């Protein structure tokens, strides 16, 4: 912060002199770039205090040593080596930690694909099929209603529905489709993905809708006039223009699902481990450096995914 202000102060008199020589030197404090810094400042401070600094601490702690009851501030790679203990010896079989990360990625991919599909069409419907602004507003508000209750409740509500003696199973048995309760409905990958999709589709709908609503309708008319089919319009006009929304929504969903351990825990009957779960157990066992190491690994993976996505779409340019 200090350096940037210094630079600013050094740079701004020149700027001012160049642009308007008549102004007194005092006005230099209100130069456009200073105003920009001022506007960005609060957010930068918040970002620094609540994100960057804690993150630096996490990285530092991940390289500390530890014992049963305290952190030992001495450089050690133990947090990382413990995490991957026995993984090389076990090759070509994957060790549990690798499997856990793969499982996390798999769940994340499934949830991403499904929420993207549903979210895209919901947003499409809202943006292009609902003509009146009032209805658009009303319907998108309707989408938020589930968010009036807590995540946990929305998640737990699935349990009596999907359970062995739950509503779905008793319904299936009554119409004679099955004669034994379907067990994979609950405490399985199916229920995990179902709950996550239910919880997070909205995070796809909003950004995509937001991009779509800004598409100039005359572009679609032009495509129509030029003889494009509906599919061609969708592929060549709407999807490219909705890309920023798709990417932002994807980032929301991917970051949340990669870090989630509560939904996966509850809906998976605690039998499906995810990367977040490893961190939680480590913290509970007071192994903070190991937890931090796992957090760093998770962060790197998530960061790589997001970098790949922003390679596909340059969000800065699109916005």
């Amino acid at each position: 912060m200090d350096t940037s202000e210094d630079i600013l102060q050094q740079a701004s008199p020149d700027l001012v002199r160049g642009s308007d020589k008549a102004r007194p030197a005092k006005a230099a404090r209100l130069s456009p770039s200073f105003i920009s810094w001022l506007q960005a400042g609060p957010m930068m401070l918040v970002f620094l205090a609540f994100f960057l600094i804690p993150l630096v601490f996490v990285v530092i702690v991940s390289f500390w040593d530890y014992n049963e009851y305290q952190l030992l501030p001495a450089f050690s790679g133990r947090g990382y080596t413990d995490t991957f203990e026995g993984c090389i010896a076990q090759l070509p079989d994957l060790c549990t930690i690798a499997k856990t990360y793969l499982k996390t990625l798999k769940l994340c991919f499934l949830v991403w694909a499904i929420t993207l599909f549903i979210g895209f069409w919901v947003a499409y419907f809202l943006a292009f099929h609902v003509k009146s602004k009032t209805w658009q507003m009303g319907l998108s508000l309707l989408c938020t209603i589930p968010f009036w209750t807590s995540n946990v409740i929305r998640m737990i509500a699935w349990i009596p529905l999907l359970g062995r003696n739950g509503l779905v199973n008793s319904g299936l048995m009554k119409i004679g489709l099955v004669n034994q309760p379907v067990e994979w409905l609950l405490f399985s990958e199916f229920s995990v993905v179902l709950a996550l999709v239910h919880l997070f589709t909205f995070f796809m709908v909003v950004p995509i809708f937001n991009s779509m609503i800004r598409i100039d309708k005359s572009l679609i008319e032009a495509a129509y006039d030029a003889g494009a089919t509906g599919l061609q319009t969708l592929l060549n006009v709407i999807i490219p223009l909705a890309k920023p929304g798709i990417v932002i929504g994807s980032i929301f969903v991917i970051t949340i699902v990669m870090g989630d351990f509560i939904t996966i825990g509850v809906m998976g009957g605690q039998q499906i481990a995810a990367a977040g779960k490893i961190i939680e157990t480590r913290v509970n066992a007071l192994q903070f450096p190991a937890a931090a190491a796992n957090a760093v690994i998770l962060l790197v993976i998530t960061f790589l995914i997001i970098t790949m996505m922003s390679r596909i779409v340059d969000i800065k340019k699109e916005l």
Partner: protein
Amino acid sequence: MTETTKKTGVSRRTLLKSTAGLAGLAAGSGAITGFPYVMSAEPKVLRYLGTAVNEGDDISKQCLKDTGIKIEYITATTDDVTKRVMTQPNSFDVLDTEYFSLKKLVPSGNILALDAKKIKEFDNITPVFTKGETPGGKKIGSQGTAPWKVLYLEGKDSKTFSKTATEFVTLIPTVYNADTLGIRPDLIKRPINSWSELLNPEFKGKASILNIPSIGIMDAAMVVEATGKYKYADKGNMTKEEIDLTMKVMTEAKKAGQFRAFWKDFNESVNLMASGETVIQSMWSPAVTKVRSMGIACTFQPLKEGYRSWASGFCVSKGVSGPKLDWAYEFVNWFLSGYAGAYLNRQGYYSAVLSTAKANMEPYEWAYWMEGKPAEKDIKAPDGSLLEKAGAVRDGGSYEDRMGAVACWNAVMDENDYMVRKWNEFIAA
């Protein structure tokens, strides 16, 4: 009085108001002995960190009534309590935690041992804690972190446990119980008498175990021993090989689809059992009671290999001193004086001082909860709801029978770090 008032120009009304206020303050602080004392007394407040076991509104209200000490509960899970002691020792005054945590807490230096001489009922504490035997003389299994192994410290600020009785007590015992498996007798329809039934393929996809590593591994060890696969020197302090073996047995069962789910808190275990997702699982006594109070048959099944026990107690934060420390002693003394003990006994736990709890219970209640006799009258929970109809007998019988059959205690192993990693692998497998 009126004269003075007139002279100083204070109206009678104002005086009445302020007197009433002071009287209220006096009543609130529990000091109704002297006017000047009230003026200088600060409110007696203790921040009480613990799991929800001992924390009840009724207990805090009664405590305020009897001693004037206001208890502010800070409720957390066992793991979180430990974390908090390590990282924020100044955020609480009184700590209510389990004996097995002491292996982590004492070396951290963040807790203060209490002075046994200042605890009125200390000599009346059940020999379960002090000698490792029941009042009737039955020897209790000492595997794991048995309370008597970690009850005393060598000195006031010592970080080593003393093998003999000293003045300095790590945790003043409050509550404990003997845990076993819970079953749904209506869905199993045959007698269950061994821990090995948890892995019986008959219950494939209908069994559960708790996902708290240090407790779960003890249950797993009870199962492994019951199947005759291996006999541990100390289930509560396994070697790496023993941990590997235990987790291998459990992982194989898991991969074969034995478990429906794992649970981590009280309500999860109740839901699993009540909804019929599981028919056999490790469970806690009040959870069984809860399922039963929903009108669903559930038994806290005594097993031939015995129980896995746990115990908790009070100590204070290192930062507590002066009057606050006196209040802490006052509170602990009050807690052992009967009301709280009876309250806990009525929930199916056991109180540390039996004599005072007995004095606070009806004879028929004592006979049901502690002597294993059929209930003469309906048994009510502390909140007044019906627990058992007259004629019912407590699962596992009397105090002597249950505590006398304890095989091991919840523990923190020397290889705890390794164990937690292996447990994680089991959960993820």
